[in-house]
Protein backbone atom coordinates (compact mmCIF):
# COMPACT_ATOMS: atom_id res chain seq x y z
CA UNK A 1 0.00 0.00 0.00
CA UNK A 2 1.26 3.45 -0.86
CA UNK A 3 1.12 5.55 2.28
CA UNK A 4 1.11 9.31 2.12
CA UNK A 5 3.90 11.21 3.84
CA UNK A 6 3.89 14.96 3.73
CA UNK A 7 6.31 17.25 5.55
CA UNK A 8 6.16 21.01 5.20
CA UNK A 9 7.71 23.84 7.14
CA UNK A 10 6.43 27.35 7.60
CA UNK A 11 9.31 29.37 8.96
CA UNK A 12 7.17 32.48 9.37
CA UNK A 13 4.87 30.75 11.85
CA UNK A 14 7.66 28.44 13.11
CA UNK A 15 5.53 25.42 12.40
CA UNK A 16 6.20 21.99 10.95
CA UNK A 17 3.25 20.17 9.42
CA UNK A 18 3.43 16.43 9.00
CA UNK A 19 0.76 14.19 7.53
CA UNK A 20 1.20 10.45 7.41
CA UNK A 21 -1.14 7.56 6.62
CA UNK A 22 -0.89 4.24 8.41
CA UNK A 23 -2.28 0.91 7.27
CA UNK A 24 -4.12 0.13 10.47
CA UNK A 25 -7.36 1.07 12.14
CA UNK A 26 -7.75 4.11 14.35
CA UNK A 27 -7.74 2.20 17.66
CA UNK A 28 -4.39 0.63 16.92
CA UNK A 29 -2.73 3.80 15.62
CA UNK A 30 -4.03 5.77 18.60
CA UNK A 31 -2.51 3.18 20.93
CA UNK A 32 0.79 3.33 19.06
CA UNK A 33 0.98 7.08 19.76
CA UNK A 34 -0.21 6.98 23.35
CA UNK A 35 0.96 3.74 25.01
CA UNK A 36 4.49 3.51 26.32
CA UNK A 37 5.07 -0.13 25.38
CA UNK A 38 4.23 0.68 21.76
CA UNK A 39 5.95 4.08 21.62
CA UNK A 40 9.15 2.47 22.85
CA UNK A 41 9.12 0.25 19.77
CA UNK A 42 9.17 3.00 17.18
CA UNK A 43 9.72 6.46 18.60
CA UNK A 44 13.51 6.60 18.30
CA UNK A 45 15.40 6.42 15.03
CA UNK A 46 17.77 3.48 14.65
CA UNK A 47 20.18 2.57 16.20
CA UNK A 48 18.57 4.31 19.16
CA UNK A 49 15.67 3.00 21.12
CA UNK A 50 13.13 4.97 23.07
CA UNK A 51 12.91 3.99 26.71
CA UNK A 52 10.00 5.23 28.76
CA UNK A 53 10.71 6.24 32.32
CA UNK A 54 7.23 7.53 33.15
CA UNK A 55 3.98 7.55 31.26
CA UNK A 56 0.77 9.04 32.52
CA UNK A 57 -1.49 9.62 29.55
CA UNK A 58 -4.14 12.02 30.78
CA UNK A 59 -4.62 15.77 30.67
CA UNK A 60 -2.00 17.19 33.04
CA UNK A 61 -0.01 13.95 32.90
CA UNK A 62 3.35 13.43 31.25
CA UNK A 63 5.58 11.09 29.32
CA UNK A 64 9.26 11.08 30.22
CA UNK A 65 11.51 9.08 27.95
CA UNK A 66 15.04 8.88 26.72
CA UNK A 67 16.95 7.40 23.83
CA UNK A 68 19.45 4.62 24.32
CA UNK A 69 21.74 2.95 21.83
CA UNK A 70 24.10 -0.01 21.92
CA UNK A 71 26.86 2.43 22.93
CA UNK A 72 24.86 4.47 25.40
CA UNK A 73 23.40 2.56 28.33
CA UNK A 74 20.38 3.99 30.17
CA UNK A 75 22.52 4.78 33.24
CA UNK A 76 24.70 7.10 31.20
CA UNK A 77 21.88 9.08 29.68
CA UNK A 78 21.53 12.54 31.14
CA UNK A 79 19.12 13.87 28.62
CA UNK A 80 15.45 13.07 28.63
CA UNK A 81 12.55 14.26 26.59
CA UNK A 82 9.50 15.50 28.41
CA UNK A 83 6.06 15.41 26.81
CA UNK A 84 3.33 17.07 28.86
CA UNK A 85 -0.23 16.27 27.88
CA UNK A 86 -2.31 19.42 27.65
CA UNK A 87 -5.55 18.35 26.03
CA UNK A 88 -6.80 14.91 25.06
CA UNK A 89 -9.84 14.09 22.94
CA UNK A 90 -9.84 10.28 22.88
CA UNK A 91 -9.31 8.74 19.42
CA UNK A 92 -9.43 12.23 17.87
CA UNK A 93 -6.49 14.36 18.94
CA UNK A 94 -4.12 15.24 21.74
CA UNK A 95 -1.83 18.19 22.25
CA UNK A 96 1.43 18.30 24.11
CA UNK A 97 4.22 20.57 25.21
CA UNK A 98 7.58 19.01 24.40
CA UNK A 99 10.90 19.96 25.96
CA UNK A 100 14.21 18.55 27.10
CA UNK A 101 14.53 17.50 30.70
CA UNK A 102 16.75 15.72 33.19
CA UNK A 103 15.95 12.23 34.47
CA UNK A 104 13.44 13.64 36.95
CA UNK A 105 11.56 15.60 34.35
CA UNK A 106 12.93 19.03 35.27
CA UNK A 107 13.30 21.21 32.19
CA UNK A 108 16.88 21.74 31.07
CA UNK A 109 16.25 25.00 29.27
CA UNK A 110 13.48 27.26 28.05
CA UNK A 111 13.17 25.69 24.63
CA UNK A 112 9.94 23.92 23.86
CA UNK A 113 7.53 23.06 21.11
CA UNK A 114 3.76 22.67 21.13
CA UNK A 115 2.46 19.67 19.25
CA UNK A 116 -1.02 18.70 18.17
CA UNK A 117 -1.56 15.18 16.86
CA UNK A 118 -4.86 14.58 15.09
CA UNK A 119 -6.20 11.21 13.98
CA UNK A 120 -8.70 10.43 11.28
CA UNK A 121 -10.10 7.01 10.45
CA UNK A 122 -10.40 6.20 6.76
CA UNK A 123 -11.10 3.07 4.77
CA UNK A 124 -8.51 0.53 5.94
CA UNK A 125 -6.17 3.23 7.09
CA UNK A 126 -5.70 6.05 9.55
CA UNK A 127 -4.35 9.49 8.75
CA UNK A 128 -2.29 11.25 11.40
CA UNK A 129 -1.71 14.96 11.17
CA UNK A 130 0.99 16.52 13.32
CA UNK A 131 1.46 20.23 13.86
CA UNK A 132 4.58 21.24 15.70
CA UNK A 133 5.03 24.89 16.67
CA UNK A 134 8.32 26.10 18.08
CA UNK A 135 8.73 28.99 20.47
CA UNK A 136 11.44 30.43 18.24
CA UNK A 137 13.63 29.49 15.32
CA UNK A 138 16.60 28.69 17.52
CA UNK A 139 14.48 26.10 19.27
CA UNK A 140 13.35 24.66 16.01
CA UNK A 141 16.95 24.41 15.07
CA UNK A 142 17.87 22.87 18.39
CA UNK A 143 15.10 20.31 18.41
CA UNK A 144 15.79 19.39 14.84
CA UNK A 145 19.42 18.98 15.76
CA UNK A 146 18.52 17.12 18.92
CA UNK A 147 16.63 14.81 16.61
CA UNK A 148 19.51 14.08 14.39
CA UNK A 149 22.04 13.32 17.07
CA UNK A 150 19.63 11.88 19.57
CA UNK A 151 21.41 9.61 21.96
CA UNK A 152 24.92 10.86 21.39
CA UNK A 153 25.09 12.16 24.91
CA UNK A 154 28.43 13.91 24.46
CA UNK A 155 27.13 15.67 21.40
CA UNK A 156 24.27 17.24 23.27
CA UNK A 157 26.35 19.21 25.72
CA UNK A 158 28.60 20.42 22.95
CA UNK A 159 25.64 21.31 20.89
CA UNK A 160 24.01 23.38 23.61
CA UNK A 161 27.21 25.31 23.84
CA UNK A 162 27.33 25.69 20.11
CA UNK A 163 23.78 26.94 19.80
CA UNK A 164 24.26 29.36 22.66
CA UNK A 165 27.21 30.76 20.75
CA UNK A 166 25.18 31.16 17.61
CA UNK A 167 22.38 32.86 19.45
CA UNK A 168 24.62 35.27 21.34
CA UNK A 169 26.72 36.08 18.28
CA UNK A 170 23.63 37.26 16.44
Amino acid at each position, binding site marked *: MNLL*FDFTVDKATKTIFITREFAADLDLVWDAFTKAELLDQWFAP*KPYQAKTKEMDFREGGRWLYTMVSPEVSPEDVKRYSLVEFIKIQPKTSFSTRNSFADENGNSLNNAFSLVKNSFKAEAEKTTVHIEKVFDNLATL*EMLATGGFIEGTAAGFN*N*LDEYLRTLVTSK
Partner: protein
Amino acid sequence: MRRDIFQAIADPTRRAILVLIAVQSMTPNAIAEHFDVTRQSISKHLRILSECDLLAQKQEGREIYYELKIDKMKEIDIWLDQFRKIMEEKFQQLDQVLFNIKNKKK
Protein backbone atom coordinates in the same frame (compact mmCIF):
# COMPACT_ATOMS: atom_id res chain seq x y z
CA MET B 1 35.09 18.59 -5.73
CA ARG B 2 31.67 19.06 -4.14
CA ARG B 3 30.50 16.51 -1.64
CA ASP B 4 27.18 15.58 -0.18
CA ILE B 5 26.71 17.67 2.93
CA PHE B 6 24.61 14.98 4.60
CA GLN B 7 27.36 12.47 4.18
CA ALA B 8 29.69 15.01 5.73
CA ILE B 9 27.64 15.55 8.85
CA ALA B 10 26.64 11.90 9.22
CA ASP B 11 30.04 11.20 10.77
CA PRO B 12 30.15 11.82 14.54
CA THR B 13 33.76 13.04 14.50
CA ARG B 14 32.97 15.57 11.81
CA ARG B 15 29.94 16.79 13.71
CA ALA B 16 32.10 17.17 16.80
CA ILE B 17 34.66 19.13 14.76
CA LEU B 18 31.92 21.49 13.55
CA VAL B 19 30.76 22.02 17.11
CA LEU B 20 34.31 22.77 18.25
CA ILE B 21 35.00 25.19 15.45
CA ALA B 22 31.68 26.94 15.90
CA VAL B 23 32.89 28.22 19.23
CA GLN B 24 36.22 29.54 17.94
CA SER B 25 38.46 29.11 14.94
CA MET B 26 41.19 26.55 15.56
CA THR B 27 44.37 25.15 14.08
CA PRO B 28 44.37 21.52 12.92
CA ASN B 29 46.65 20.60 15.82
CA ALA B 30 44.36 22.18 18.37
CA ILE B 31 41.42 20.33 16.83
CA ALA B 32 43.31 17.02 16.85
CA GLU B 33 44.01 17.37 20.58
CA HIS B 34 40.29 16.96 21.24
CA PHE B 35 40.13 13.57 19.60
CA ASP B 36 41.62 10.21 20.18
CA VAL B 37 42.47 9.68 16.53
CA THR B 38 45.51 10.33 14.38
CA ARG B 39 46.37 13.78 13.11
CA GLN B 40 46.08 12.28 9.63
CA SER B 41 42.51 11.23 10.17
CA ILE B 42 41.63 14.72 11.47
CA SER B 43 43.17 16.21 8.32
CA LYS B 44 40.98 13.97 6.24
CA HIS B 45 37.86 15.06 8.14
CA LEU B 46 38.86 18.70 7.73
CA ARG B 47 39.35 18.20 4.03
CA ILE B 48 35.91 16.63 3.63
CA LEU B 49 34.25 19.42 5.61
CA SER B 50 36.11 22.03 3.55
CA GLU B 51 34.98 20.37 0.34
CA CYS B 52 31.41 20.66 1.57
CA ASP B 53 31.95 24.35 2.00
CA LEU B 54 31.40 24.08 5.75
CA LEU B 55 34.88 25.28 6.74
CA ALA B 56 37.00 28.20 5.71
CA GLN B 57 40.75 28.52 6.16
CA LYS B 58 42.39 31.62 7.50
CA GLN B 59 46.14 32.20 7.59
CA GLU B 60 47.49 33.85 10.72
CA GLY B 61 51.25 34.07 10.81
CA ARG B 62 52.53 30.58 10.28
CA GLU B 63 49.36 28.91 11.43
CA ILE B 64 46.27 27.97 9.49
CA TYR B 65 43.03 28.35 11.37
CA TYR B 66 39.78 26.68 10.41
CA GLU B 67 36.51 28.48 10.95
CA LEU B 68 32.88 27.60 10.44
CA LYS B 69 31.44 28.88 7.22
CA ILE B 70 27.76 28.41 7.11
CA ASP B 71 24.85 30.73 7.26
CA LYS B 72 22.18 30.16 9.79
CA MET B 73 19.25 29.59 7.51
CA LYS B 74 21.21 27.01 5.62
CA GLU B 75 21.89 25.22 8.88
CA ILE B 76 18.24 25.22 9.76
CA ASP B 77 17.40 23.81 6.37
CA ILE B 78 19.95 21.06 6.78
CA TRP B 79 18.61 20.19 10.17
CA LEU B 80 15.01 20.32 9.03
CA ASP B 81 15.87 17.96 6.25
CA GLN B 82 17.58 15.67 8.70
CA PHE B 83 14.55 15.90 10.96
CA ARG B 84 12.30 14.98 8.04
CA LYS B 85 14.41 11.91 7.33
CA ILE B 86 14.25 10.85 10.96
CA MET B 87 10.47 11.24 11.02
CA GLU B 88 10.25 9.18 7.85
CA GLU B 89 12.36 6.48 9.42
CA LYS B 90 10.37 6.48 12.65
CA PHE B 91 7.11 6.15 10.76
CA GLN B 92 8.49 3.21 8.82
CA GLN B 93 9.29 1.58 12.14
CA LEU B 94 5.75 2.26 13.22
CA ASP B 95 4.46 0.64 10.01
CA GLN B 96 6.34 -2.47 11.06
CA VAL B 97 5.00 -2.37 14.61
CA LEU B 98 1.44 -2.00 13.32
CA PHE B 99 1.99 -4.80 10.83
CA ASN B 100 3.28 -7.14 13.54
CA ILE B 101 0.35 -6.43 15.84
CA LYS B 102 -2.18 -6.99 13.07
CA ASN B 103 -0.51 -10.29 12.17
CA LYS B 104 -0.58 -11.47 15.76
CA LYS B 105 -4.30 -10.79 15.97
CA LYS B 106 -5.04 -12.91 12.90
